């Protein structure tokens, strides 16, 4: 009924809800070189790390409690996956997510194809929603590819061993896999804040580089501020404050306090940024 009122006077076969289908946008993005490169690197990284571990120089410099994750990385496929996530969580994944979410609208604007999509017309909210979902799908895909490749390569090379860490007892593989999935889930949630920020910038600016770089830059700034303990309680409001809370999933029993707070923080930030993005995009004059 709503459709009938919205489609009267439209060209034959046009339905707003059928415009820019998810699959079409997914294909648009899939054909892009940066998508292929980013996803390819997700596959490549664990393999590079795997090869790097073959060059064992043998020197052992101690470090914090979590440096042991590096020492334990070769003890099994699960530990290798955990290590791969550890090294990529703080920066690489942030960049990748910022790339997928920050580039999606801004690049269309810079190519000039955005106005033709709007003239189709793809309703603005729908355009944004589809673009966001596709960007999130690619971000999730990147995360899964990284973890999947690491798990596969690590298991083939180091075997299906229990998950070890120095902070808790070793976990048998099934339990370890469960924890690993939980770590992935938490990382995905934390990265929602990056996704939100990048997406907002993508809507605000027409320069794809500005959106991606801006999001990464602000993320780094937040990380730096988080290092300054003098800021005290303010730090808890930084989007990066709980970024490492997933390490709590390695202890027994699982430390959920920070995980829950991290989820709240990330979801709140993401919701805020996305709301602003939709608010802005559905009102702005598209001039590019």
């Amino acid at each position, binding site marked *: 009924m709503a459709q009938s009122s919205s489609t009267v*006077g*439209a060209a034959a076969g046009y339905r707003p809800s059928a415009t820019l289908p998810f699959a079409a946008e997914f294909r648009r993005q899939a054909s892009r070189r940066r998508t292929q490169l980013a996803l390819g690197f997700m596959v490549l990284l664990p393999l590079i790390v795997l090869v790097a571990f073959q060059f064992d120089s043998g020197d052992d410099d101690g470090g914090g409690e979590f440096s042991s994750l590096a020492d334990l990385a070769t003890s099994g496929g699960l530990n290798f996956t955990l290590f791969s996530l550890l090294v990529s969580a703080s920066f690489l994944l942030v960049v990748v997510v910022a790339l997928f979410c920050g580039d999606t609208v801004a690049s269309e604007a810079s190519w000039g194809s955005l106005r033709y999509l709007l003239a189709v017309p793809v309703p603005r909210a729908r355009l944004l929603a589809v673009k966001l979902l596709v960007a999130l799908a690619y971000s999730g895909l990147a995360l899964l590819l990284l973890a999947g490749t690491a798990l596969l390569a690590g298991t083939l090379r180091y075997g299906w061993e229990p998950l070890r860490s120095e902070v808790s007892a070793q976990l048998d593989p099934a339990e370890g896999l469960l924890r690993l999935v939980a770590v992935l889930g938490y990382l995905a949630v934390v990265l929602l804040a990056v996704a939100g920020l990048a997406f907002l910038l993508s809507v605000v600016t027409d320069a794809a580089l500005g959106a991606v770089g801006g999001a990464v830059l602000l993320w780094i700034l937040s990380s730096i501020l988080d290092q300054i303990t003098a800021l005290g309680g303010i730090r808890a409001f930084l989007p990066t404050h709980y970024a490492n809370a997933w390490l709590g999933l390695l202890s027994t029993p699982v430390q959920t306090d920070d995980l829950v707070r991290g989820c709240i923080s990330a979801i709140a930030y993401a919701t805020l940024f996305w709301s602003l993005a939709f608010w802005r995009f559905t009102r702005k004059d598209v001039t590019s």
Partner: protein
Amino acid sequence: MRSPLSAAPVRRALATRRRRIVAGSAATVLLAAAVLWAARPGEAGFRTEPAMISVRSGPTGDEPVDLDTTFYLPDGASADRRVPAVLLAHGFGGTKESVRSDAEELAGQGYAVLTWTARGFGRSGGQIHLDSPEHEVRDAERLLDWLAARPEVRTDAAGDPRVGVVGGSYGGGLALLLAAQDKRVDAIVPMITWNDLSRAFLPESTGGPATSGVFKKGWAGLFFGGGNAGSDPAGFSGGSAAQPEDAPTSAGPPSPAPGAGPGTGPGRAPSGAADPSCGRFAADVCAAYLRIAASGRGDQAAVDLLRRSSPAGVLDRIKAPTLLVQGEADTLFPLAEADANARGIAAAGTPVRVAWFTGGHDGGDGPRNDSDRVKYLTVQWLDHYVKGEGAAPGDDFTYSRIAGFDALDRGLVATGYRTTDYPGLGGDARREVAVTGPAQPIANPPNGNPAAISSVPFAGAFGSLLGRVAGDVPGQHARFESAPLPEAVDVAGSPTVTLRAASATGEAVLFVKLYDVDPQGAATLPNGLVAPVRLTGLPAQIEAAKPVTVTLPAIVRRVEAGHRLRVVVATSDQAYTTPVEPAIYTVAAGDGPLVLPTVAGVPIPTTATVWRWVLAGLLAAIAVGLVAVVLIARRRHRRQDSSVHPEYAGTPLAVRQLRKEYADGFVAVSNVDFEVHPGQVVGLLGPNGAGKTTTLRVLMGLTQPTAGEIYVFGRRLVPGSSVLSRIGALVEGPGFLPHLSGLENLKAYWRATGRPWADAHFDEALEIAGLGDSVHRRTRKYSHGMRQRLAIAQAMLGLPELLVLDEPTDGLDPPQIAEMRRVLQRYATEGRAVLVSSHLLAEVEQTCTHAVVVNKGRIVASGPVEEIVGESPSVLFDVTDPEAARDVLGRLAGVRVLPDAEGQLVVDTNGTARSEVVAELVRAGIGVDRVVPRRRLEDAFLALVGENSRGSGDR
């Protein structure tokens, strides 16, 4: 003319500046707020009164001693509003400054807090008598008198203040002893303190007396020697970090330098007894220490002296409700001390509550969440029993266990547990684990060197927890190990194990430890706790040895499934004095299993539960918000005007009074009004910046008009209107995905429309584009003209009823322009229409049936091209003699020479053939160099918009 125009830039500048000011001031306000918040002054809520109080104590009660005190009085306390008091004692080696932060917190809770530096420390006078009832305890009694005399302090009777006593370690011992000695004390919270000082320093884990105990030289030396301890955790009190001794005070006098413990300041002893070996220790205490330390054994007199300073003998006299807080990471006063205190006090019918936390003399405050729990328990206890507020805290037992490392601040994290009844050190259940191993000979190293390391005082919980400090010397220890545990065991209490030992000398000093060994072989000694034993009357042969039961120190630990338990019996330990003579012992497992006490504790709910609800609430709120937004959007959409304006039902495009004013005040389009009818090719003409593109942008739904309407086939067009699907557009140049080929681009575009594939008419579009095989190349490699043609093809996909093209011939070569002209003319048949915007007049003149001329945001002319051009075609003549020519032409009937400022000859032939005019001129002997037909629309255009070369966009 200038004045209205100049207003716009001014307005724009003003608007820009206003926005900048708003943004700037917003940023400034935010920054200022952040700075203020960061630098906000802490609300004190209390005031402090430092004072030297002179009290009379000693055996006879008449020896004067000056005590350095600080009195914290909460705001609002007065003779009319009396407040309960807390006597807050510091740890050994500390001063009143060590407990300042605790005092401030308690004062914030509404208690008058009196802190003082115990005699023999800091600026206080007197000597250290180790919490002797006649000295330190009597000092404290006098302080109770002083409190009772304060008008602000609530009293139970004259001279009897309402007071609780709180203290850690040395201060905790004082709290117990004071409560036993003085009935005026209403509640006490002794923390990490002793029950029997002789047993603490001379432990023996088979139940032997202190006189046969093994001297804990590490801790004893540290206390006696003082000096190197600095701001030590012995100053721990009230569960919060010991303040650095030199921390500035709000009102008090400068406090002594850090580490001003005993022995470091002998010259300050007011008695002048500057014995370099005793420092500020009282002579009897000093002598006892020297005897024990020299021999490694406690004689009866020394033990008696330590007993005098112990609550053990006076527990039955304690009537004040007692909260005992003891640390699990404490090799000085282990959990057994609090256990003995709890049993002794409870036997007298006094309410007792026990709490274990993961800190202690080795572990400090423990993790943050654990020290917070201790603080909470303390305040709860005081509030009920001293202030008289809140429900009775009950006597349930709480304890905690290190759960791992905090992922965020790299500290330890503890999990709290609770059981309803205090199970003691025996647990409420037992697990028996067999440990086996052959009889092993082990050597006692001469002079205890090299020695095994189990704990290092003040090394902190990290080392001992990770077992990195622990190390046994080969040949000096025996091992007995269990099989891997089939399931995890939650140990809470003192494990016991039986051993047999043989020694040629008949005696042996042994250290029994319980390691948790993980499947990789890494062994952990929980909290570095060891059980020293001194066995006497041993046979020389192990076969003849009788089993002895060793009670290991109480621990709280989860031993995971698959881990082994290892009992290690060592001959030496760095923290203890061992026999000087070398010897060989033989050690074998006893006849019983290793008994592990367990407690079925329930995890104490933490704030995480609250946060989980917050998360659930947040998700629910987002879901509700999303649904609401979607519903509102639908509703708004449904309400949208979907009626057909009858007047324009058959008109592809009707623009009515369109106006677009940008946020900065620039009016791009002030009043545009035109129509495009079926079959028409309408040219939208105007200089750069006239408002053509803005009009088209509004037409495409990219920009919101400020006022006016656009109707497409009678339907109101707003951004996103479905009716836009009947318009094909090329606005502001092509926009393609550079990484796709031309064909793929068109397909991707059509896929985005969601319309049936067959409706696209790709073949027609591709034919118009005329790209040939290049259609399979990436658009990134296209020339400008190729892109332009592809864009026009894209606009024609689906053969829309209205085609809107912005500068379509941009980048095309002349043959292509000619072709495009034909295409457009052909397109505007079958009820379709085309709107072309251009500034190329010739193009419009040749392509369009109608034209709309826009200038400075307004329509200056509209109608059929012929009408605008007018009916009088003009010709420009270039002649040798213009003056003569004028005369000749003037004579010709109907021919009119138009006035021309530049001296050129422009002639309106008015139907007379040009050849005839030329012939007439030549006949008159005037040479004709050139005859050029004037571009007619250009004339009209220039006449309409004026010849000013400045674009109207520069207004």
